[in-house]
């Protein structure tokens, strides 16, 4: 499936909004409870060509969100993001892309985002930090 069609499908099925992006990237904003289903759809429709190149936490207008960027050869990339609400956990992507676990582990340690379905990891980058989640803004 082409990325354009996939984006339309996700927007229609999951009440997601498409954002303007530079270049061949497509950005989709959706709610946290649709995040995993959207990623499963991306994984299923784009198949082996789809690579999760990174997943990270970031801020948009001082609101923390979690995003995953998938690159598909010859098509460009698609960025799926969801707002992280206080007290709610994000679904883990490690069942779809195993290498997502270390990126989730990093986000858990630096931003304090919790993940459902992830391994119970110990902090590994800033074990002795004086601030609990050094990247998180108050």
């Amino acid at each position: 499936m082409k990325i354009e069609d996939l984006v339309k499908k996700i927007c229609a099925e999951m009440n997601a909004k498409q954002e303007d992006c530079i270049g061949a990237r497509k950005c989709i904003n959706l709610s946290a409870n649709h995040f995993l289903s959207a990623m499963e759809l991306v994984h299923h429709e784009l198949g082996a060509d789809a690579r999760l190149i990174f997943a990270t936490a970031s801020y948009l207008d001082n609101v923390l969100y979690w995003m995953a960027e998938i690159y598909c050869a010859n098509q460009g990339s698609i960025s799926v993001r969801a707002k992280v609400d206080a007290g709610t956990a994000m679904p883990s992507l490690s069942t779809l892309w195993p290498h997502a676990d270390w990126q989730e582990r990093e986000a858990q340690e630096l931003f304090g985002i919790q993940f459902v379905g992830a391994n119970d990891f110990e902090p590994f980058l800033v074990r002795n930090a004086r601030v609990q989640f050094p990247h998180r803004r108050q």
Partner: protein
Amino acid sequence: MSTQLYYPPVTMSQKGMIGPFALSVHEDGGLVEKLSLGIGYGHRGIESCSESLVFNQCVFYSDRVDFLAAPACNAAVVLAMERLGSIEVPERASFIRCLLLELNRLHSHLFHLALIANSAGHAPLFQYAQRERERFNDLFEMYCGSRLGFGSICLGGVVENASDGWLFRVEQSLSALDEFLVEARQTLLSSPLFTTRLEGLAPLSIEVAKKNNISGVNARSAGHLVDVRNESPYAAYGELRLAPPLASLGGGDGLARLRYRIYEMTESKELILRALARLPRGNHRVIVGNSIHLPRGEAVQRVESPRGEFGVYLRSEGGTRPIRLKYFTPSYFMMRLLPELLRGEQVEDILLAIHGFDISVSEVDR
């Protein structure tokens, strides 16, 4: 019955010389049964610090993400900023960027060969490879004052114009490299000192490489032919027409990785010669100022660093500083896979295997 060995952190002062990290090995009859990693000893919070720096300062701080691939780190950050700010770079600057990136690749691969030789106990080859690497360090020093190329690629172009004298020295260094590569091929790929230890060492399959986002030489030597220079050409790579990655060098083991790195050095040499032949005249930089404002938005830029796919996610809210600058690095994904790949290998081959994957710990920790 299995026993447990505790290795102290492998530090810069030790033979490994790839950065500080800890290994804890459970061994069974000399074979690795389970391996645990400890990272983060060199965590400098580069991403967090960048949020308090102006865009231009972030470029110079990016060198420290991977000191062996400073121009690649610079290029990723700079290209993302230029994309976000719609900054047009002179054509000459794009070609010089390619020159610097490929010279850096040669420099990094030579360091890698030296490390492999050192871990296999071949002291002369270690010294020869370091001698060759010095030539490229000299070139970077002549160009920008830093022997590792720190700050050579800057916002709006490159830091200095390439003089004719410097370009002549580049050509000379490449001719000298040719002779070394012939020697290295004979020594490395035919000497039992390397072949018996590297053959079949820590094999990486194409499926595992794909599933775990492994890139660079490690992936290509396993048959996963990804190369950002081909997939999404940046700087002047589109005009230099890089040949597609070779599938015939595949095999996925330590020897295949070494073979592929030597092949890549020849390929880099060809690319540099092609860039030299087509280097246009003109300006090397457009002045963008020290406190540039980038518009609200975000950009993702990937480049092919000597270790694989290196990238940057940049988010700006319209000021002089980034809101978020995230680095995604090839060694991070490679390091994660080490316990799986080293299971069943001999304990004494651990360092050789780790060097074979060309992992940069400074990239993992950031």
